[in-house]
């Protein structure tokens, strides 16, 4: 590994990288290596962004579509967490439940969430229901698995300490098992949030009546590349925000526990 860079070196190289990227893009667009429709200039994308905020596209403004998407996302994710976390915990604590649920789960787990879209649309429509189900399918496995592992691999000595100190069943669960599982639960929520967001986009691209994904598909239909790019950025930025927020929570918990690395 070569030596650590000074701050100036780091700054210069980073800027150079970005300049190369945007420079090539602008150059290619300006030289019309592809028709302008397909390869807009970077600032044209920014213009499209402003336009989308002001005027509706395919029924809604950008923020309108975002709200639709987020609405579905929150429902799907919260549902996945509300079902997945408690179920995972109980599977980790009670062997019999683990034995019953795991075969079922293992079977369903391999079905990529996107493959649920046709059934989801059939059963729950393309409004809120269908996409929500797909989000659930994406967010559920990480929530479950991580809660399961957090519950199952509680350190033996905590359980013994609790027993020695005379704690009864419910107290052991509430004051020992649950707190010790919290870091794993939060990690699961973070991963689930990410996969859930991706599943949302997938569902909206294919079978939705509103939302950022739909906006992108419609824009694709009219070959409105700038709008497509705005959509991509919106999706990316939002996914990033969710991830950053959850990582921050995760690190806060780790620091409180002294698990921080």
């Amino acid at each position: 590994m070569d030596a650590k860079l000074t701050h100036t070196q780091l700054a210069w190289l980073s800027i150079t990288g970005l300049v190369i990227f945007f420079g090539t893009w602008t150059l290619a667009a300006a030289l019309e290596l592809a028709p302008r429709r397909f390869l807009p200039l970077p600032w044209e994308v920014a213009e499209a962004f402003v336009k989308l905020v002001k005027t509706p596209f395919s029924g809604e403004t950008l923020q309108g579509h975002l709200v639709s998407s987020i609405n579905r996302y929150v429902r799907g994710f919260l549902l996945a967490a509300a079902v997945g976390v408690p179920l995972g915990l109980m599977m980790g604590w009670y062997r019999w439940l683990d034995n019953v649920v795991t075969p079922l789960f293992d079977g369903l787990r391999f079905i990529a969430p996107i493959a649920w879209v046709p059934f989801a649309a059939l059963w729950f429509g393309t409004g809120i229901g269908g996409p929500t189900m797909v989000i659930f399918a994406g967010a559920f496995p990480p929530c479950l698995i991580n809660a399961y592992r957090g519950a199952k691999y509680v350190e033996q000595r905590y359980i013994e300490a609790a027993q020695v100190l005379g704690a009864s069943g419910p107290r052991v669960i509430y004051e020992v098992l649950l707190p010790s599982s919290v870091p794993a639960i939060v990690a699961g929520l973070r991963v689930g949030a990410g996969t859930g967001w991706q599943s949302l986009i997938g569902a909206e691209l294919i079978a939705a009546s509103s939302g950022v994904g739909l906006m992108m598909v419609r824009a694709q239909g009219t070959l409105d590349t700038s709008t497509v790019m705005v959509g991509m950025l919106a999706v990316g930025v939002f996914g990033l925000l969710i991830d950053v927020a959850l990582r921050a929570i995760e690190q806060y918990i780790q620091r409180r526990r002294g698990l921080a690395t």
Partner: protein
Amino acid sequence: MAGVPARAAAASCAVSDSEEPAVKSNVKRDPARLWTGVATVIVLLVLWSVADRVGWVGTSFFPSPGNFWSALQQSVTTGYADGRLWEHLLQSVKLILMGFLMATAIGVPLGLWMGWSRKAEALINPIFLLIRPIPGLAWIPLAIVWLGVGDAAKIMILWLTAFVPTVINSFSGVRGIERPIIEASRMLGIRGFTVVKDVIVPGALPSIFTGLRLSLQGCLTALVAAELLGAILGLGKLLYQGGLDIYPGMILVGMVAVAITGLALTALIDLAERYAMPWRHT
């Protein structure tokens, strides 16, 4: 103590997006687990067969085993959605492998280079940070605009989907090599390409394989999505047509095919991993 969960093993670790989910069933050591598992599966199968007859679920919503079976037969023999099942499968798998292998061929060396050279990292990272948050699926509309609904667009999507996790995991694989090992290699006078061959690549290999698994899963998802949007052949096409025709039996066939493909591809990577890292048992 009634109601209190049984004892447990040692460490606790979080399953993150750079790791494998592993609800491990220790079937060998726990016969109860095996039998309960079998029993559950049997119960579910029975419920499934009985569901539509008893009137719980209409077959226009969820296929009965009979529906599923006849749809399966149809897809295998006469074909559905302009192709037989194996043709759809072949098309999808072909594209996935092409996109995946191209992304790996570029992504792994790039990630390794970025891991080894801090200058390379500083240069490339900003661009990477811009691209990284955009999920593979979100590239689909752009790819279709640029390249249409043919194979080329799909390969572009797959390439982009596989590229990101591959680079990240190769990068962290290099960075994860313990200091003492690097220092030992310096002390032993290993230089140049030998360092790459004998120290960096083997050290980063576990992480690289994790990245490969992730990108392959991502590819399957992205391809099915792309095919759902527009394709002539492919598992996604099968699903799409089944949805359009409201043919639940065929939808289920498509889903099962996707699941089995995912399993098979993961197994392939596991096999490759065992071959590439004989010093580890996974």
